[in-house]
């Protein structure tokens, strides 16, 4: 077992709690009708988001699936504008044009959540291609769900990443459900990881309820990528505490799964690890939680108090040059 600095471990806890509490606040706002559209939260999968992100530099890049709030928060470090985007406000990261499924902050390397299952995979591979051409040392991680591994673009991009040795990590957030379908009923292999063998890509299965294992696996993959050894596929087993979207009755989810999910809560496990090993005191964690709660309340308040976009700006951003003529006819 590797020894980590306390600051590092507390940062992991802080990030996971921030993502969890952000998602809880977003769910609550959605149920109360303050957020419209579709909201997909990553509660139960915080270990994947945070563990992987801790292995990255601010200069690295990521893409996320439709379940991308957490990734956006840890990469952008902008709770307020991420929340405001969910509320469709002008102060949102995308000025209210994207919403929950499209939270993006390009300048921080968050190349976007994506509403198309698997849609971010080619974009991430393209980002990795740009890094390879420029030899800039950056790594791109594409986060996507187990369901995306049945899309053609997954297989096409694994192949191209392998032949071109792209600095990319294909990171499967494997919560076992592709919307409502048990992933094991729509694949014919033991694991998703072994799909990478077809492309001669290094792959591993990781227990996503242990955030340090996620961190370590990602770190190995990042090193491989930076050393020019090409892509890695990580099949990270996580849980989804809720249905596909907030409000999904999710009757298709088995009791066993949900019991196991809550018993294996990555945050509880990590808290216990910190307490058991005398790394942190209970009070310290409580204090941290309180501080995060306040930040989330402020983010929500920021979102509520922000202006909605001006109607006159509706056609902006369709084109980056000659927009007016291009949208006119």
């Amino acid at each position, binding site marked *: 077992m590797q020894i980590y600095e306390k600051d590092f471990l507390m940062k992991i806890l802080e990030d996971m709690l921030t993502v969890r509490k952000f998602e809880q606040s977003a769910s609550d706002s959605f149920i109360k009708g303050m957020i419209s559209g579709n909201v997909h939260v990553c509660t139960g999968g915080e270990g994947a988001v945070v563990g992987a992100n801790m292995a990255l530099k601010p200069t690295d890049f990521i893409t996320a699936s439709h379940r991308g709030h957490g990734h956006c928060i840890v990469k952008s470090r902008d709770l307020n504008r991420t929340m405001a985007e969910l509320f469709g406000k002008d102060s949102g990261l995308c000025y209210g044009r994207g919403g929950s499924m499209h939270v993006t902050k*390009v300048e921080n390397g968050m190349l976007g959540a994506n509403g198309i299952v698997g849609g971010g995979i080619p974009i991430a591979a393209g*980002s990795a291609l740009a890094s390879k051409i420029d030899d800039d040392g950056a790594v791109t991680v594409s986060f996507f769900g187990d369901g995306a591994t049945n899309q053609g673009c997954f297989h096409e991009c694994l192949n191209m990443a392998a032949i071109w040795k792209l600095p990319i990590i294909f990171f499967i957030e494997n919560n076992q459900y592709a919307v409502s379908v048990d992933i094991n009923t729509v694949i014919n292999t033991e694991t998703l990881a072994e799909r990478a063998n077809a492309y001669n890509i290094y792959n591993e299965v990781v227990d996503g309820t242990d955030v340090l294992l996620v961190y370590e696996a990602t770190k190995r993959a990042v090193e491989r990528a930076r050393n020019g050894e090409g892509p890695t596929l990580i099949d990270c087993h996580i849980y989804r505490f809720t249905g596909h979207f907030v409000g999904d009755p999710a009757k298709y989810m088995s009791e066993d799964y949900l019991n196991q999910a809550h018993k294996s809560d990555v945050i509880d496990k990590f808290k216990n690890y910190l307490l058991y090993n005398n790394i942190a005191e209970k009070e310290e964690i409580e204090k941290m939680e309180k501080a995060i709660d306040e930040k989330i309340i402020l983010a929500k308040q920021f979102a509520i108090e922000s202006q909605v976009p001006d109607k006159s700006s509706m056609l902006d951003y369709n084109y980056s040059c000659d927009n007016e003529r291009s949208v006119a006819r």
Partner: protein
Amino acid sequence: MNRTITMIEAIREAIDEEMALDKNVIMLGEDIGELGGPFGSSKGLLEKYNENRIIQTPISEWGFTGIAVGAAIRGKRPIVELMYNDFISVCFDPIMNQAAKMHYMTGGQAKVPLVLRAPTGSGRRGAAQHSQNMEALFAHIPGLKVVCPSSPQDAKGLLKSSIRDDDPVIFLEHKVLYPIKGNVDDSIDTIPLGYADCKLEGTDVSIITWSRQVNFALQAAEKLAESGIHAEVIDLRTLVPLDWEAICKTVSKTHHVVIVEEDVRRCGFGAEIAAQIGEELFDELDAPIVRVASLNTSVPFSAVLEDEVFPNPERIVTKVIDLLKE
């Protein structure tokens, strides 16, 4: 200097010159390496720019078109060559849902300066999956620009503008035009997107068209002149953005409109132009708008059938004479 070159040579020169000018310009596509492209658009470029910039891909259109989108967001200027525009069916997500919408969805954060070059059109006995005209499909999607050149000069100047443009541009090259030679004036560098070209001035009827049909329209105009009918031929060159001023000018001049397109008639881009003229220039019209388009059919293989599907100069002449008779 004036030179006479084919359209495919003009396209290759445009790519070559832009690659020399900007190291971020890269090219992706099938068979573009040693072979120099299925139609020869990248001949000699691999030797000049190496495999980091002339990126020969496997036959994975969804993947490599999407990869180009990602590279574009990261500041590259990818030119994607799709072997035939018909193949858009297997890579439509990166074009329709990613490239076209990225700038909008991200509130302007992500630019996608990508050019999708795609051979288009009928007339080469390619049958139903290698002969379609798909400009209306692309023009329908907000966020895309659509360019349809008809000559080597336009192909070169418009392609150079498309590569420098910060938005995704669908650049449709008619396969039948590839080997046709035309004059290229080297003093012209870029031709801006969104400006039509009046190919022939006339007073009696406006033939509004683009791509290969420009040549047919000019041949028809020649025939019509023999009967004393002076047709004006407008080559739109770019469908998005559309040169509405040029359309207004010609309609107000001749008061008779014939729209010629090689795409199928139903929901073709000609229908859009007709609708806009009908809505806004109705008072200028002395007769109903006429469309000459391909029949609403898949493109047949057999030559005798295929030649019946798309417009030709004779059909344009007949339609114009019928229109002016009324």
